[in-house]
Each structure stands twice: as structure tokens, then as C-alpha cells.
């Protein structure tokens, strides 16, 4: 297994404010890594730097071995993302959006790939519907289909199931689990749903005040720190991060 993402000493300052404080981590092919932490911990800042839409103050990001700062276009070619705060343009239909982003990601056999994804994410009946009139759950599925267009080596998901009902969320988790277990890509997943993180992720990184406080298997990590569940551990990270520093 090789690393599809290697982040080394990533640091982002906004003036005097430290948003991300020299964090280092990696994501391997076929692995789902959860990036969790309270609001303002630096999760979205980290995701945005990996997406190339935010320049880090220092540090390096390698995507499938390609240095993002030196070969941005090549690095982003094998990346894709879904974020609840980045819906696709509502004035284009599902197929139009997918076609445009397939072209932007230089996807081959675009029509075939779009048909596969329409079936996979049960979007066929919405193919000619404008994205703006879809429910938030349907829009999330379209965004996930967009995120899968180029069969990315690195998939970044920022709260992908936040607006989905439990049944759809379960299906989406299964699809993403299938994606990673097929061994064609790795996933960096942020979520506030600790049950989801425990169910889906192979490894979890707890981020607080821009630092990675804890890292480990989401099923074993709570017990290692004297907690009964990941949720309880999360509450400790959110309320008393100092008690965990140095672990």
C-alpha cells in the first residue's frame, strides 16, 4: 500500500491566528481516514489546502507522490471532493454539471462514466433536473457523483452525509466503503457524527486548535484513553484538549 496523500508540517496562519499548526499525516490507498474535531479546529482549512484553494503558510502536500505546490494541475487530476458548502451550480441539470466537471477532470468516455454514476447514485430520474430544485440529500448525491467522476486516488469528503436521511446516509457510507476497499483510492473524511466515523474509518485523527491531538483506530482509541465511546472522546477533545496533549 502506498500513500495517496502525504501531508508534512502543514501550517496555516491567518495574521497572528494559527489555523493549522504543523500537522503531518498520510492517507494510504484503500484507507478511509477520519478527520474529526470541534468547529474551528482546522478541518476545513486542512481540506482546502489539500484542494489547492488555500495556500499553506508552510509545509508540503504530496498527492499520489505529486507535490501540489509545484505541479498543481497534475496533483488535482487525481483528487476530487464533496463538501456540503460547495453545491454544484443550481442553474444546470445533473447531467450538464457532471459533463462539465468530467471535462474539467479530463475524464475519458464521459457519457459512459456519467451513466454509471447516475445508476450508482440513483440519480437517473433526475438526469435532466436542475440541481437547484433537488432536495439537499439529492444534491449531496449529485456532488458525490461529481466527486467520483475521475475515479480519484484521493477523495476528500467534508461532512458528506450531513444532509442525508439515515437510510440514504447508510447507503452512501456503504458506497464509499466499497470505493476504498476496491483499493483504487484513499479517503479523507470529516464528520461530526462519531458513530459514522467509528463505522466507516480505518483510522481517525483528532484535530483541536490546529493540532493533531490523537490518532488511531476509531474502535480502539476510546478505550486507550479511558473513554467508553468515540463520542465521549470527542467531547473530551472539544472541552478539555489539554488533558489529552502529549498522548
Amino acid at each position, binding site marked *: 500500500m502506498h500513500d495517496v496523500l502525504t501531508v508534512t508540517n502543514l501550517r*496555516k496562519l*491567518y495574521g497572528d491566528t494559527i489555523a493549522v499548526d504543523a500537522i503531518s499525516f498520510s492517507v494510504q490507498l484503500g484507507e478511509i481516514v477520519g478527520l474529526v474535531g470541534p468547529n474551528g479546529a482546522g478541518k*476545513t*482549512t486542512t481540506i*482546502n489546502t489539500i*484542494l*489547492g*484553494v*488555500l*495556500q499553506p503558510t508552510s509545509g508540503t502536500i504530496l498527492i499520489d507522490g505529486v507535490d501540489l505546490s509545484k505541479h*498543481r*494541475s*497534475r496533483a*488535482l*487530476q487525481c*483528487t476530487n*471532493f464533496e*463538501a456540503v*458548502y*460547495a*453545491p*454544484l*451550480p*443550481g*442553474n*444546470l*441539470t445533473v447531467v*450538464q454539471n457532471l*459533463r*462539465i*466537471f468530467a*471535462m*474539467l*477532470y*479530463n475524464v475519458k468516455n464521459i457519457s459512459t462514466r456519467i451513466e454509471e454514476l447516475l445508476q450508482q447514485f440513483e440519480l437517473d430520474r433526475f438526469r435532466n433536473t436542475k440541481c437547484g430544485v433537488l432536495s439537499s440529500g439529492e444534491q449531496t448525491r449529485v456532488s458525490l457523483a*461529481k466527486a467520483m467522476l475521475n475515479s480519484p486516488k484521493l477523495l476528500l469528503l467534508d461532512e458528506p452525509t450531513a444532509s442525508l436521511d439515515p437510510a440514504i446516509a447508510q447507503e452512501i457510507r456503504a458506497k464509499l466503503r466499497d470505493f476504498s476497499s476496491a483499493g483504487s483510492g484513499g479517503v479523507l473524511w470529516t464528520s461530526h457524527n462519531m458513530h459514522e466515523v467509528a463505522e466507516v474509518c480505518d483510522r481517525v485523527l483528532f484535530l483541536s486548535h490546529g493540532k493533531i491531538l490523537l490518532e488511531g483506530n476509531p474502535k480502539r482509541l476510546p478505550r486507550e484513553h479511558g473513554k467508553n465511546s468515540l463520542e465521549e472522546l470527542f467531547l473530551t477533545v472539544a472541552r478539555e484538549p489539554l488533558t489529552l496533549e502529549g498522548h
Partner: protein
Amino acid sequence: MSAKRTAAIVLRQLYLFRGSPARIFPLFAWVAIDIVLWGFITRYLNSFTSSRYNFVPALLGAVLLWDFFTRVMQGVTMAFFEDVWSRNFLNVFATPLLISEYLTGLILSSIWTSTIGLIVMLVLAQGFFGLSFLGYGLFLLPFLFLLFLCGIALGIFASASVLRMGPAAEWLVWPIPAMLSPFAGVFYPLSILPPWMQWIGRVLPPSYVFEGIRTIIAGRPVPRFDLLMGTSLALLYLALSCWFFSRVYHHVVRTGLIARYSAETLS
């Protein structure tokens, strides 16, 4: 550069136009109104002035060319604004798309939108008011090209300004052509302007077009020097505007503004 990624930007515009009369209508409506209005004004002026002077090519021709310049600029900015309005920057700029591909896509989008406006204007001006651009000869083409270059440069500069200042800056963009027109000598020679305005006019490429067109109408030889100066300036401004857009893009990526674009500032 990837032709496929550039084509994606153009295709997006085609999709948007295909399903939206509100976007198609302005392509020709305002220029048509301008041509009709100025067509009748020139006809009225012709009715009580010396028969030796024809206002149609001088005024109506100037309106047509200025509207073409404006449409080219707006072709670029409108394509850019679609990303502003749909809050699409994060999706677009997280792809492998290069800035050069994005700008080329905006320029290609502008070519077909401004061409529609130009055709409508030519048909109306010729059909109703007898303005024949064929009379200018082949030298009309380099003048049109010069205006096209200048419109593209201004459109990219305006888009970069909105990218830097936020969505509200859109309202600063629309009046730019109107602000430039007094200095560009669209309807009068630069020589009647006060010296300080003439200096500004001399650094604006469109002023060389309108001076040149008036020279041709007066029956004098085609002013090749004006054409060369205007084209050189337009190419310089095009290069500067692309550089400016690139600088602004790197600034908004460095500061994080592009990911929080609707906030307009990070303070």
C-alpha cells in the same frame, strides 16, 4: 493547456444560454435599441445639415463599434459572473483547471456572444439606416480586432477586480465603458478635448479606432500608424490584464478568500 478543460468553460455558457431567455435577450436587445435610437438621431441630424456631411457612418458607425467593444467586455465578465452568482469558485478552482484555460474559456465565450450582437447591429444598421461597413473596406477588420482585444483585456481586468473585491464589486464593472467613452473620442476627435483628457485618450486603444474610422470617412488614407499604436497598446493591456488576474487569483488562494468568497474580506 487542455482543450477539453477550456471547452468545459465554453460549454457551461452554452448550457446556460440554451435554457435561459433572460440570458439570450440581452445579447441583442440593448444593442438593437442603441442602433434604432442613434439611427433615428443621425437621420434627424442629416435632415437639417449640409448634404455634404453624412452623420450615419460617423455617429451610427461609432455607436455600433463602441457597442461591440462593450459587448466583448461584457461577454467575458458575464461568463465570469456565472461562477460568482452560482458560488462555484470552490468547485471550479479545485479541479486541474489552469488559469490560462479558464481565461481562454471566458474569451471564447465572449467571441460568440459578442458576434451575435455584432451581427444584429450590422443587419439593423444596414437594413434600416443604410450604414454599409463594406464601404470602409477590409480595414474595418483590423479595427474590429483591435476593439475585440481591448474589450477582452478590459473584461479580464474587470473580472480580476471582482475576484479581488468580492461579489459587490460587480456594480463597479458595468459603468466602465461609459466612464471610458468621453476619453476615447467615440463621437468627436481627441483634439477637441482639454490636454489632460487627450493624454488619457492617447493611452486608450479604442481612441485610435475612432480617430482612424473618422480619417477613412473623411476620405484620407488609412492611418496605419494609429492602427499599429492601438493594436500594440491593446496587446500590452491584454498581457497586463492576464497578469493581473493571475496575481489576484494567487492572492485569493494565499489568503483563503476564494474559499470564503461571499464574505468579500477576511477581516
